[in-house]
């Protein structure tokens, strides 16, 4: 069962090949046997998952099921789950059990999906390797000496290792796409505002976006159908109508114009990775798409702009973690100042502290104009580059990452090298665009991702291109051999 896609599992449930209880039990079994190799899960929802599966089986029998009824899904531990630990990978929230569900979770619950568990992540979604978790690093199922990428590393590893058929993630600068690429799975970061942020613990509010990670584009479409939609409780949530993303998957690619930004194929790109990506693009060309050379001239502003804006927002988003109302609180505070400083010193990890300090500095009186305001101007230029490009092309494509997964510990002492990992993914968040990563081959047995970028609310087209690519290739069907997985 665990080798099947969500679409196949949904069919199996309908055909009564197996029940949701059997399916859920099988995944719980795999997690208990295998997750010690990957550390993908922070919480496994054993008892409640089976209860939910029983309910789902009844719903399936009654004929009122949705395509996700009875399907186990793993959720990044950044989405609040009522009555279940929601740690955000931090000691700060190591005891936090929300009395509410995130909108994303409510939507999955309403669809009848099963919460399989909560997946590991970089603390507060800050990281590109999943080494910044209070719950320890996640390991890449293709090679457990490698990182799985971050920050949705637990979700990506869980899907790659077939501990879950699909998972949710969040993407602030590449946190769905980069781990999807490193783990050889498919991930979609929707248009900013397409998926509600309510109950999704904030890292950088103007960039954060939830999305699906799965084995195929078709599965991502199924999950997005459930996740997307306006939420009146999230003021930045888009009011645009949601389409059925599964309907246009098979459209042919005849006449599709794909822009290849020369800035994404230049210096810094690992040559073998670049070759794999070019080969993938040839496949799309073979299906009738035309490849167009384009430029995103302000690409060099991306990393500096992102590493001002994201930390600035994070520095104040994380102010609420003060030991007063919930979460970690230092022992025996002597006074208010002591309560604040010791609680936050003990509760946050190094990368989180680094970004709080950077963001606080960037917003300070006398520096605001030089940093935050400048970064916002750069952000507008970056967005305009994309808007200009989409005048000429339908979608944009390139590598998801500069190279394949790197070794655990290889970059953990060098924040700048780590930040460069996101050089191709950050701009999509700054521009609020939808982006995908699709398995596109291997370099030294390590997966490589093809990134597809669409105009605002162009998810259907991205999924269509990704699906057609997956119809013609088998990269997405490969599974890791490590850790006893077949």
């Amino acid at each position, binding site marked *: 069962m665990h080798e099947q896609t969500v679409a196949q599992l949904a069919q199996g449930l309908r055909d009564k090949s197996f029940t949701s209880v059997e399916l859920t039990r099988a995944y719980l079994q795999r997690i208990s046997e295998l997750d010690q190799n990957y550390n993908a899960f922070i919480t496994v929802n054993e008892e409640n998952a089976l209860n939910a599966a029983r309910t789902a089986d009844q719903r399936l029998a009654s004929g009122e099921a949705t395509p996700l009824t009875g399907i186990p899904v793993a959720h990044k531990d950044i*989405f*609040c789950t009522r009555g279940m630990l*929601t740690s*955000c990978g931090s000691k700060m*929230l190591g005891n*936090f059990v*929300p*009395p*509410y569900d*995130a909108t994303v979770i409510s939507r999955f619950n309403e669809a009848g999906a099963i919460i399989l568990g909560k997946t590991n992540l970089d603390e507060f979604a800050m990281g590109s390797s999943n080494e910044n978790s209070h719950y320890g690093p996640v390991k890449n199922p293709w090679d457990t000496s490698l990182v799985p990428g971050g920050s949705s590393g637990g979700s990506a590893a869980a899907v790659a290792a077939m501990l879950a058929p699909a998972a949710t993630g969040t993407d602030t600068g590449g946190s769905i796409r980069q781990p999807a690429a490193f783990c050889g799975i498919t991930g979609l970061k929707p248009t900013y505002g397409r998926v509600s*942020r*309510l*109950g*999704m*613990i*904030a890292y*950088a*509010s*103007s960039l954060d976006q939830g999305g699906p990670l799965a084995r195929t584009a078709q599965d991502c479409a199924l999950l997005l159908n459930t996740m997307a939609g306006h939420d*009146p*409780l*999230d*003021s*930045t949530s888009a009011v645009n109508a949601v389409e059925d993303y599964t309907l246009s998957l098979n459209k042919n690619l005849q006449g599709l114009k794909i822009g290849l930004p020369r800035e994404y194929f230049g210096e810094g790109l690992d040559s073998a990775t670049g070759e794999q990506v070019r080969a993938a693009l040839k496949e799309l060309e073979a299906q009738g798409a035309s490849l167009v050379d384009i430029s995103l001239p302000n690409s060099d502003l991306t990393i500096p702009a992102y590493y001002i804006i994201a930390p*600035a*927002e994070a*520095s*104040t988003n994380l*102010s*609420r973690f*003060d030991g*007063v*109302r*919930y979460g970690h609180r230092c022992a025996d505070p002597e006074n*208010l100042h002591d309560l*604040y400083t010791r609680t936050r010193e003990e509760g946050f990890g190094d990368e989180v502290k680094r970004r709080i300090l950077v963001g*606080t500095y960037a*917003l*300070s*009186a006398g520096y*605001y104009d030089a940093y*935050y305001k400048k970064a916002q101007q750069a952000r507008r230029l970056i967005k305009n580059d994309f808007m200009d490009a989409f005048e000429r092309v339908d979608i944009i494509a390139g590598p998801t990452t500069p190279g394949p997964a790197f070794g655990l510990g290889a970059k953990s002492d060098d924040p700048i090298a780590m930040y460069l990992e996101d050089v191709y993914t950050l701009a999509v968040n700054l521009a609020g665009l939808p982006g995908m990563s699709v398995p596109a081959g291997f370099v030294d047995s390590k997966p490589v991702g093809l990134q597809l970028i669409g105009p605002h609310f162009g998810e259907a087209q991205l999924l269509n291109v990704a699906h057609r690519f997956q119809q013609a290739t088998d990269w997405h069907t490969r599974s890791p051999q490590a850790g006893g997985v077949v």
Partner: protein
Amino acid sequence: MQWETVIGLEVHLQLATKSKIFSGSSITFGAEANTQASAVDLAMPGMLPVLNEQAVRMAVMFGLGIGANIGMRSVFDRKNYFYPDLPKGYQISQFADPIVGEGQFEIQLEDGSIRQIGITRAHLEEDAGKSLHEDFHGMSGIDLNRAGTPLLEIVSEPDIRSSEEAVAYLKAMHSLVTYLGISDGNMAEGSMRCDINISLRPVGQVEYGTRAEIKNVNSFRFVERAIRHEVERQADILEDGGKIVQETRLYDADRDETRPMRSKEVANDYRYFPEPDLLPIVIDEAYVAAIGKTLPELPTAKRNRFIKQYSLSAYDASVLAGSRALADYYETVVAACEDAKIAANWVQVELLGQLNKNEQAIGDSPVTANQLGGLIARILDNSISGKIAKQVFEAMWQGEGTADEIIAAKGLQQVSDTGALEAMVDEVIAANTAQVEQYQAADDAKRKKLLGFFVGQIMKASKGQANPQMINQLLAKKLA
């Protein structure tokens, strides 16, 4: 040296919305601690603000009320600082682009003179919770019921020159916002709080002196006293050749003094930046125009109309237009009795007198405007005298019924029947022959005095119910 006082006021006005500015929690005053705090108000992880449109509407009403520029695109910002009663670690406020821009505000002083005070801006923001430092065994308690209550912060130009003007400004502001129905203006419950920026400069100097800010003064009386003390304190320092330190001071009502809170040099850097969880508020002309149509007649316009329409003095018009409830009451009385002058006297002297004595508001008056109008009508049609009317008013206050009911029940109807009055006059003349003789021998001046004696006797005999005008006529005829 002669010093000129320069004052600017920041008024924090609690808006009378049904729920908080960014959550659905209720904002009823006096609820048990933390029972009006939702997950949003507690800043639980993942919670997001959603703007209450009613607060925007009320801010626009205020802007229109002072003829200000309305910000068609205003932006919320985060004001960052740590404090336990500020759950998010930032206050959502407006910094660079407020919803209400520059405007003018007219105030009237006790002597009737009019002054224009510039309004710099007014912006929307959320209130913080309350820290409670007593009864927690050395710890502090936090009550987040107030956290997220919508506030309009109204900032004046430094156009105010005395404590009298400051109080007049606040009273006029109170009047305006209650007219608009955007706040209950209850200072005792903190619905209207005031920060006072105050400095002195030598008379004739153009540059402002260094200012001190007095925080959170919450009554008209305290504003007056706080300013008086601060002016004295600053004048003493300047007279001695000293310098004023720019600082925030607290007015201690118990000790009747101001003292420093914290120095601006060590004050927080609030790191304002646009709130990414909220979209800018974008409104259009049609939205503003529609709100404009709902505005009631405002205090200044009403006062001027009262002067013109009812021929009232400026003072009477100011008093009666001082609150919308009182003005409405007055106009109902006028409609019922059709004499604006007498209605003005009765409302100001008898009604307000009784209300003040009993510390009641106009809304609590046991005598309705129609009842009071009915009473005045009985004076005007000579059913009762003014003196009896006061007696009837007392009875109405006690809830004994309408004027007509009370007059009938107590037999207070004025006697205007010529036959009955003639009999009374005859009786009094017969019983006082000595005075009749005196009258007939006297000159005009003396006669007038003696006539008063006869009137008094008749009124006494009639228990005040005899029609005094008719008595005068009858007496003059019979004694001639």
